């Protein structure tokens, strides 16, 4: 269980997260929607320990990310895929994937490499294992980014707008992979602007507005007139997103 309890986060005077509560159970796919600046990225960065909380608690399978002793274990259980990929530029696709399994999980190198290659093959990059990030297209890079996170066998996959730096064709490639992961039962916390896609793959959709979780509903109810749409802010947001 990934639990976010009453989390508050401010940068200076700016309150970015204002008492957020959220639970993600194993096997669930939860999408986070919200307008720009609502705090989505900050929430993800709090969960993987890149930002310190001002208040509240985040636990990943009971490991508290605010406790230095627990952070390493919490991080082992979650994997992050970034908007701008953040691949290690001096390492091949395969090296990007095997570094953490070998160094953190102490997996034998040969084993990690075999698994890495299998992962790459599963996202259609079987023949690109030895390519460097600069030699890959954006979509290919993001697929490597996903493999790098998956190689740690995380219980929870955190994704922050992983397609927003990609053109539509590459977006489709990456979304197809995420859809497959969802069907396979991967637990995902998924920040996105791809509303239709979120609707298809999510079990639940939450809506963040000015640092507060306004709505937390099963996907279908989120789009129902008496569900999420009953919230004026959600209706506004959805109509604006559909227009764009």
């Amino acid at each position, binding site marked *: 269980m990934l639990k976010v309890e009453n989390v508050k986060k401010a940068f200076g005077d700016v309150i970015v997260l204002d008492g957020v509560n959220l639970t993600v159970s194993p096997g669930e796919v939860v999408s986070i929607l919200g307008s720009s600046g609502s705090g989505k990225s900050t929430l993800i960065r709090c969960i993987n320990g890149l930002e310190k909380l001002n208040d509240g608690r985040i636990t990943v399978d009971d490991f508290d990310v605010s406790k230095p002793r627990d952070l390493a274990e919490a991080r082992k259980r*979650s994997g992050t895929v970034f908007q701008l990929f*953040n691949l290690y530029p001096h390492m091949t696709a395969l090296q990007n994937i095997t570094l953490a399994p070998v160094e953190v999980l102490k997996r034998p190198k040969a084993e990690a490499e075999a698994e890495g290659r299998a992962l790459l093959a599963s996202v259609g990059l079987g023949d690109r294992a030895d390519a460097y990030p*600069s030699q890959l297209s954006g979509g290919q890079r993001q697929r490597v980014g996903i493999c*790098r996170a998956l190689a740690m066998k995380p219980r929870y996959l955190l994704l922050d707008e992983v397609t927003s730096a990609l053109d539509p064709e590459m977006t489709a490639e990456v979304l197809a992979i995420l859809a497959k992961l969802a069907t396979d039962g991967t637990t995902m916390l998924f920040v996105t602007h791809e509303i239709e896609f979120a609707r298809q793959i999510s079990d639940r959709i939450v809506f963040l507005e000015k640092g507060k979780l306004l709505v937390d509903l099963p996907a279908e109810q989120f789009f129902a007139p008496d569900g999420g749409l009953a919230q004026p802010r959600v209706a506004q947001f959805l109509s604006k997103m559909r227009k764009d």
Partner: protein
Amino acid sequence: MKIDLTILAPYVGFLAEGALLTAEVCAVALVGSVILGMLVAIARTSQLAWVRGLAFAYVDLFRNIPFLVQLFFFYYGLPEIGIYIDAFTTGVIALSISGGAYASDAIRAGILAIDNGIIEAAEVSGLPRRVIFTRIVLPIALRTSVRPLGSVLINMILTSSILSTITLNELTGNARIVTSETFRPFEVYVVLLLVYAALTYLVSIAISLLHRWLNRDMQPEVN
């Protein structure tokens, strides 16, 4: 007096020996200063204020005191505290320490230029700080600082001529011996100038090639 370069012909081998010694001193000192530069660059990112201060003081001091003075400090000073080392070792130590001050700046700039997202990606995957530093930060920083480190090397080659003042018979030292035997200082030193210029030119070409080779996979990213 006419300029006659042929009188140098018998001394070509002797000068080449000097050049070889110059190359040796610089090669060892380059390794020394890059290692020192890395340590100091790390120290300058330390959480401890006094470690940062110490590292900064080292860079500041050794960049603002003439190499000649640093060299004499070691050459005449070390025996006084009972450390007897030869001119070669003294030269290597002095060049490494002074080169290290410049190298640390080059490496530090390389570290600061690394995209923070890359380091965050490493952090969230649970890699310990030491591994992040040795496997990600340093390799990327060294790649981008090849050129500035190359300038450090070129400067070092030129500076190494000063080692002739502590009786090390590197290229300049041997050239001084040749002038005292031939009484043709003009020819000797003109040739010496050109040899140094050619040497540093070759080194700069080698550095460009190395830079291109090391960064062959880090071309500006294309989408």
